[in-house]
């Protein structure tokens, strides 16, 4: 007999610790504990047996892994927290004594990150600890970026100091600059929540969400202290990540920041990237200008000068300008192509860089943003895909390549306003009360492509310049599809035509539907609807047979059911035929015999299908009989979820079918 095991000395009872216990052990306050957990990435656990883990009679809600707390015990930040606490106590004491000078002296030592946006401690060790390698940090950058981009767009309040917002904004812009310089932005998506971006940095896909540039509404109870703690950490993280990223492409970090320009809303243009002299060995001074107008004192005049110059030698300048300045850093992380030197060797697969080079999609374009377009996102995304010359209306802020709408070098103009019909007749002279160089709303400059903003996103996602006519101002835009969806076999894909993806049964039902619809079009709409509903039911049943045959054991009865269904269908068809004949007689048209023949064929096909489904169901049934009870349950669960998914897909298909029919009808 082994040693008697005592209760509560091993296993769940030892491994888990409640939050109260943890706080007591660390001797800090709960908010400090929260901070520490957020920064160190400690999260509660779900013990395998809650009852064994909790020692008290009352149910504890949060358990931590005991070793995590042990780990926190050695945290140098703990000491900082305690120091801060004692300092606060001293201040309170001094105030209590009425010793104001003493209190103010102590107060000077206290850190007030909520005021200054800067704590006394640094979190770099914590970051190093949490992310032992750079790739680890990149992997966790999703939330960081989403959060910082949100805070960059928040209004400053008492809980969110302006300094913090400014820093967030700077960090975000710096990160965007890196993406532009390294051309690592891959995809972007305009959603109802905001704009999703996906970048690929060192093989890691990073996806983040940027809100639209509006004042954010704070709904419900949102604790900004918690978010502030996260942001504090994320700011430090992104700072170091930026540093590493900048140095990896041979840029100096932090980039030069022009405050004046920033005040004039230059955003990305307020930064001036500089080559890292230590890193680049090229003789050419790697001065990478973030914006072409970075060195210009007055953008207006410079724009004029530029224009003049361009008019003199337009093509040549363009050629010069399109040369990407960052490509001196490019060859470092590209993969060389290994061609087999002699036949007979094995072929090793290599990741291929697409020949199109997504980073230079817009390299040959010059964009002009109308004043109603969202400049920040457009500027970033267009820049990230290789465009160097983006002009915009001066209303949109500083840093434009040109503010003159009539600049002849502009190849694409992004417009997001409706066409005003009345204005077409009028001359483009007066009504617009903006500056004189503005055009009238509908005036077009020849030799330029006018497109809506979605064109940019769709082009980027498809890695090709889309046809501009679909995106012309005022045109009905094609649907904007998420580039992040990976189509699985059998799931609904809106890009494919309906016929390619619907299962046979549905297709048959559909064609049946069509005919019926076609026949009954002349009739009242009311007749059609219940029929359609009935069809829908039938579809459901057959689908059930296909997928959910596992629910009941007896396959035969179901087969019978489906057979009945068939019979019903037959009867219905007969009735229909009769009706048609009657109608034909009434209207004096010949009966559509050919159609009837086709229908019988279809019926055959349908029957075959039903039979096949039945067989399949039987097959599954048979196989399932051989499974153990546990496995069978699992199987059934999986089938349940699959059916749910397929039901959703089916719903979508149905809707689409309906819409297509409506469209067809509208055309006819």
């Amino acid at each position, binding site marked *: 007999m082994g040693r008697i095991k005592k209760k509560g000395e091993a296993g769940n009872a030892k491994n888990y610790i409640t939050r109260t216990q943890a706080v007591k052990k660390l001797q800090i306050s709960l908010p400090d504990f929260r901070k520490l957990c957020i920064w160190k990435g400690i*999260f509660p656990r779900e013990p395998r047996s809650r009852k064994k883990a909790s020692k008290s009679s009352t149910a504890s809600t949060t358990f931590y892994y005991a070793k995590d707390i042990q780990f926190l015990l050695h945290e140098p930040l703990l000491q900082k927290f305690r120091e801060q606490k004692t300092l606060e106590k001293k201040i309170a004491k001094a105030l209590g004594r009425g010793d104001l000078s003493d209190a103010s002296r102590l107060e000077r030592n206290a850190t007030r990150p909520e005021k200054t946006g800067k704590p006394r401690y640094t979190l770099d060790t914590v970051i190093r600890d949490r992310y032992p390698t750079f790739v680890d940090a990149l992997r966790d950058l*999703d939330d960081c970026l989403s959060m910082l981009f949100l805070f960059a767009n928040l209004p400053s309040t008492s809980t969110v100091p302006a300094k913090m917002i400014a820093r967030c904004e700077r960090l975000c812009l710096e990160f965007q600059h890196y993406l532009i310089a390294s051309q690592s932005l891959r995809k972007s998506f*305009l959603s109802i929540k905001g704009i999703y971006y996906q970048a690929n940095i060192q093989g890691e896909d990073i996806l983040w969400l940027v809100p639209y540039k509006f004042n954010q509404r704070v709904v419900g109870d949102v604790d900004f202290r918690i978010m502030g703690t996260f942001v504090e950490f994320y700011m430090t993280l992104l700072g*170091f990540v930026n540093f590493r990223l900048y140095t990896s492409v041979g840029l100096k970090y932090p980039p030069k920041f022009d405050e004046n320009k920033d005040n004039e809303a230059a955003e990305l243009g307020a930064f001036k990237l500089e080559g890292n002299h230590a890193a680049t060995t090229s003789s050419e001074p790697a001065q990478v200008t973030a914006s072409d107008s970075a060195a210009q004192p007055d953008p207006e005049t410079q724009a004029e000068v530029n224009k003049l110059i361009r008019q003199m030698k337009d093509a040549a300048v363009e050629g010069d300008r399109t040369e990407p300045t960052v490509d001196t850093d490019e060859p470092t992380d590209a993969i060389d192509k290994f061609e087999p030197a002699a036949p007979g060797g094995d072929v090793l697969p290599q990741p291929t860089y697409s020949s199109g080079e997504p980073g230079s999609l817009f390299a040959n374009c010059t964009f002009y943003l109308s004043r109603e377009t969202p400049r920040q996102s457009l500027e970033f995304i267009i820049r990230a895909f290789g465009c160097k010359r983006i002009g915009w209306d001066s209303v949109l802020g500083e840093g434009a390549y040109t503010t003159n709408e009539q600049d002849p070098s502009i190849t694409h103009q992004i417009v997001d306003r409706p066409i005003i019909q009345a204005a077409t007749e009028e001359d483009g002279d007066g009504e617009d009360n903006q500056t004189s160089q503005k055009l009238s709303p509908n005036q077009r400059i020849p030799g330029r492509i006018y497109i809506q903003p*979605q064109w940019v996103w769709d082009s980027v996602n498809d890695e090709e310049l889309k046809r501009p006519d679909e995106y012309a101002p005022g045109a009905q835009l094609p649907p904007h599809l998420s580039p992040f969806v990976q189509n699985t076999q059998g799931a609904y894909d809106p890009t494919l035509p309906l016929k390619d993806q619907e299962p046979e049964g549905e297709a048959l039902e559909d064609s049946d539907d069509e005919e019926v619809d076609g026949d009954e079009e002349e009739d009242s709409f009311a007749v059609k609807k219940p029929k359609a509903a009935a069809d829908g039911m039938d579809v459901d049943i057959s689908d059930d047979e296909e997928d959910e045959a596992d629910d009941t054991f007896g396959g035969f009865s179901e087969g019978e059911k489906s057979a009945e269904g068939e019979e019903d269908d037959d009867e219905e068809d007969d009735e229909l035929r009769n009706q048609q004949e009657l109608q034909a007689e009434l209207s004096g048209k010949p009966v559509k015999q050919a159609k009837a023949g086709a229908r019988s064929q279809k019926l055959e096909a349908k029957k075959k299908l039903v039979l096949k489904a039945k067989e399949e169901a039987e097959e599954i049934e048979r196989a399932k009989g051989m499974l153990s009870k546990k496995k069978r349950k699992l199987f059934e669960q999986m089938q349940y979820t699959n059916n749910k998914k397929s039901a959703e897909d089916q719903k979508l298909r149905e809707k689409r079918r309906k819409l297509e029919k409506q469209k067809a009808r509208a055309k006819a």
Partner: protein
Amino acid sequence: MGSAKANLKRKASNIEANDPATTVKIAQDSDSEDFGDFGDGILNAVLDDEDSEDDSYSFDGEGGDSDDGEETGSEYDIASEDIPTDDEGGENKLALTNGTTDLDKGEGEGEDEDEDEDEDDQSNYRIEKDANGGIRYVYDEIDPVYDSDDSDAQDPTNTIGDIPLSFYDSYPHIGYDINGKKILRPATGDALDSLLDSIELPEGWTGLTDPETGKPLNLSRDELELLRRVQMKEVPQEGYDMYPDTVEWYTSHVEQFPLSAAPEPKRRFVPSKHEAKRVMKLVKAIREGRILPYKPPEEREKEEEQEDEVHYDLWADETPRPPNVMHIPAPKTAPPGYDLSYNPPAEYLPTNSERKAWEGTDPEEREKTYLPQKYDSLRRTPAYDGFVKERFERCLDLYLAPRVRKTRLNIDPTSLLPKLPRPEELRPFPTVASIEFTGHDGRVRSVSIDSSGQWLASGGDDGTVRVWGLSDGKQQWQVKLSSEDPVDVVRWRPGQDGLILSAAVGEDIYLMIPSTMNPELEQASRAILDAGFGYASNAKQQTTATGARKDPPAKWARPGARLENEGVLLKATVRSPIKTIDWHRRGDFFCTVSPTGQRSAVAIHTLSKHLTQIPFRKLPGGAPQTASFHPSRSLFFVATQRTIRCYDLQRQELVKTIQPGCRWISSLDIHPGGDHLIAGSYDRRLLWHDLEMSARPYKTLRFHEQAIRSVKFHPGSYPLFADCSDDGTLQIFHSKVVNDLMEGPTITPVKMLSGHRVVNRIGVTDVTWHPHHPWIVSGGADGTCRLWT
């Protein structure tokens, strides 16, 4: 001062002494004197105290008695000292009067002379004029002369009675004594105070006596001055300067001569190493920026705000760390789908009913937090309401949500299903009843196909054994073995060298050679059967322990002429009814099982020697049900009701006990490969055992609704097995047995054959496979046998 006080006291006592004296004088000399200015009188007396000091005593001292008078004066003095209170003042008065009387008596002679003179005039009264001018006789006071020295003489009590003293406020007296004399008001404090005030105290008077000298202790002027200073909180010492000017002992004046004559030490001229060290420390600190020049706080704050964070390559020396098992990274948020687009395909937009349903549900119960929405241009797209909230919730999730690793089964559910061979691969297997063999009266109990596959033998309740041509379904041969007992089992002897059929009826085993139009084969078979007769006679008779003749386990004999003519050539009789027969693959041995036979239940018979052996003296686990030889090895399986025991015949030991877990085993069969075993049970189970693996079944198949009667593997090359049941059906299974140890056999149910009628709740009693074809023959309770092909 003390002496001054003493004087004062004495004076006071003088006054007291004088006071009664005066009263006495008044009383004796001039009663007529007005009492109104009595106070004045006292004061006067006091005031001219010094000059009339002697007079007061000498007013009736007369002559040479002055000494006495002085003596009495001192006497009074003492008395007054002793009795200071007012009441006793009255006593003093009495004493005084007594004194005077004593005095009078003491000097009796002189007075006598006076009295004599008075007595000469009038005897004991005096005539005085009263207030009205009339004559008033004043009698002398009668002296009662109480002859007693009563010390506690009565106080002169005030006789005014119970009236307030305030009535006398305006009088100098406060009442009357027992003698009717006025009791004078004693001197009050006011009077004393005013007296004391009027007395000037000498300087330095303390009222104390110096115990050493006995003189009054007076303070000197200096001492008084000291006291005053102390009182005034001044420094007691006169002329002390609390804040004197500093005396500069060490001044900048260079003295002419050194204090010490020692020469100047070297260190005065050499720069200090210690200092240099300290300076260097400071220099270093300044260089490193640890010591900064002073700046006013405002400036410093501003600078601090402006200073940027220090950035460096945090991952300069990164070393990948193996992931901690307990660390669960936060799950990433799902990427947006099509329906999140600002301009989604139209089919993603919710219909009205969907929208209503979404709005109707509680926000926490919604599957999605948003409704797909379409905006026809980017310009129209508004800010998303719940953005901050969603990010906040994500934050909460990151630090507050317990993380649990969940394996998401993202696999195709069909991959869970066993890889079943397709029905085409499973073929051939029997599907239809092609031939029905009818002829038996009552149930068919057993069927068997010979190893050539030509003949089917069957035995039934009618006591007959019939042989049918399997291909044509015609009865070829028949013999009636018994009229009362049914034929329980028929089995062909395996092997192509002879055609011998064995059948069991009750306790008897019959071995017969059906006539098959093949004389050579018949001849060979006969030879096989007859070979044993020689041995039988030589067989040693066994004896029991007591020496009595023991019954042999079986009697081998010829069955009798009638049967011999029919082709039944041999009969072996055992002790109890036999239920099963199983032949060894070589055709020399067969075993029989008679479940009721106690010890001799299982018997192994040797055909070539006509010998019967009882291998088990004792069989644990209840009555044996069936037994079987292993198809390739020298193993022997015996099934009792619940267990199957496997014995090694050569080593004669138990190899394994198999526990199928059923209640009552009906039959068993061994896979021709030899590693698997199936058993059927009356409680509707079919159990597949892997002999290499556990004692428990590998698979339990429960597809029958009634008891399973018989199970059989296909003996040939087809991977099939079948069972038959009382529900009237046969079930055919496909079993793929691979040699791979890692992979278990795949059992696939393929067919359910029904056709036999159920009679008296008994359906199909026995099945047997064709040795070369995927055909199966079943015998049923309805009296038929069927060939299924």
